[in-house]
């Protein structure tokens, strides 16, 4: 998930990158490796959990290549809004989505509602704009769109349609998917579903 955000960011900026996939299951410490001399992206690894600090990496990409396709607005208040919503995505979406495939019965019903409630809050923030960034794809769009590749898995596990609840959100996601930077970086939703089935087996659901 985290790698996708940085990949999209780098693709938006049109810069060369090297993406290293680390084995997330075998680490027991926090590691931050950065090597600006070779322009390698920072890889943050933590004992099997998703790397929420990917936004740190995205901001690094933004600031290091600051003259190419800015992802954040220039106005400080708009920037604060963008950071606030990207942080909201980090705090809410992963957990809410995870609970859909990791639970069943009544718990799952609650999880589905919590998830669509979060999406509706985001729809409110989006308003009538084509992107969270306004006319241009930006920081919040980038923080959020990788989760779209998990929607098929959530819908199948939860036996529901996200589009029925949040059509505006899906319209926004499809608009993002038309961008090459996004389409290239997101995995096939069916592959993600296969991965989720593995995860379910591991946790015994």
């Amino acid at each position, binding site marked *: 998930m985290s790698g996708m955000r940085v990949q999209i960011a780098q693709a938006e900026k049109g810069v060369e990158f090297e993406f290293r996939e680390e084995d997330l299951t075998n680490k027991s410490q*926090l590691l*931050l490796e*950065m090597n*600006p001399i070779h322009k390698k992206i*920072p890889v*943050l690894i933590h004992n099997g959990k998703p790397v*929420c*600090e990917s*936004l*740190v*990496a995205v*901001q*690094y990409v933004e*600031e*290091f290549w600051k003259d190419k396709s800015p992802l954040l607005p220039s106005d*400080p*208040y708009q*920037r*604060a809004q963008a*950071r*606030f919503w990207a*942080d*909201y995505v980090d705090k809410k979406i992963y957990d809410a989505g995870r609970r859909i495939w990791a639970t069943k019965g009544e718990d799952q019903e609650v999880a589905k509602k919590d998830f669509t409630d979060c999406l509706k*809050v985001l729809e409110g923030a989006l308003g009538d704009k084509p992107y969270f960034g306004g006319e241009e794809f930006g920081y919040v769009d980038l923080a959020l769109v990788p989760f779209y590749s998990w929607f098929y898995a959530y819908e199948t596990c939860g036996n529901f349609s996200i589009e029925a609840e949040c059509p505006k959100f899906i319209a926004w996601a499809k608009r993002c998917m038309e961008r090459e930077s996004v389409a290239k970086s997101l995995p096939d939703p069916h592959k993600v579903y296969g991965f989720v089935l593995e995860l379910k087996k591991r946790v015994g659901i």
Partner: protein
Amino acid sequence: MAKSEVKVLGAWPSPFVMRPRIALNMKAVEYEFLQEQLGAKSDLLLKLNPVYKKIPVLIHGDKPVCESLVIVQYIDEVWTSSAPSILPSDPYDRALARFWAAYIDDKWFPSLSGIAKAQGEEAKKAAIDQVIEGLVLLEDAFVKCSKGKSFFGGDHIGYLDIAFGCFLGWLRAIEKMNNMKFLDEAKMPNLVKWAEKFCSDVAVKDVMPETDKLAEFAKVLMAKFRGPPTN
């Protein structure tokens, strides 16, 4: 800028509320401090932060900014002519500062609040040990970020000093209540020195709550937390 142009909605015991206050002090920006009462969220708070309903909220003119670290960055970006800069200028150093600030909020602070939630002596000791493990990591981070200077931010306090230093009041209060030490000279010599310097910094000393006051407040909180079960 008139004082009423900038307001901070918060509460004196909250480390998160301290963050924007320190940042505003660093920029010599006058502000009005509006305090929330414990146990009752004001209409103003609910209106300005409908998503989380939490303090701090910065009110600049009529615009609210929420989330303490988002606010600190906003302050740094608005009052640019006031030196020094809160975030470092180099992108790599900025990334390090943001990474460790995220670690503090996402991992270390939850371990700190785990102490109050721990039931029984063994659980409490385990919770305390977890906090100390985190402090050892932060000692290493200090060496890397400070590059031999007094603060994480170098010669002056910066983003990471603010993100972490705001918890020192509470660390001292918990030390006092449990008769133990978190900042150990042997394990974290740099953090011990840094803590003294941070707490006496001119931007910090008037907003850092006194240890005794916090300990008293903690007792009130615990009584509320462990009060009679409610339905």
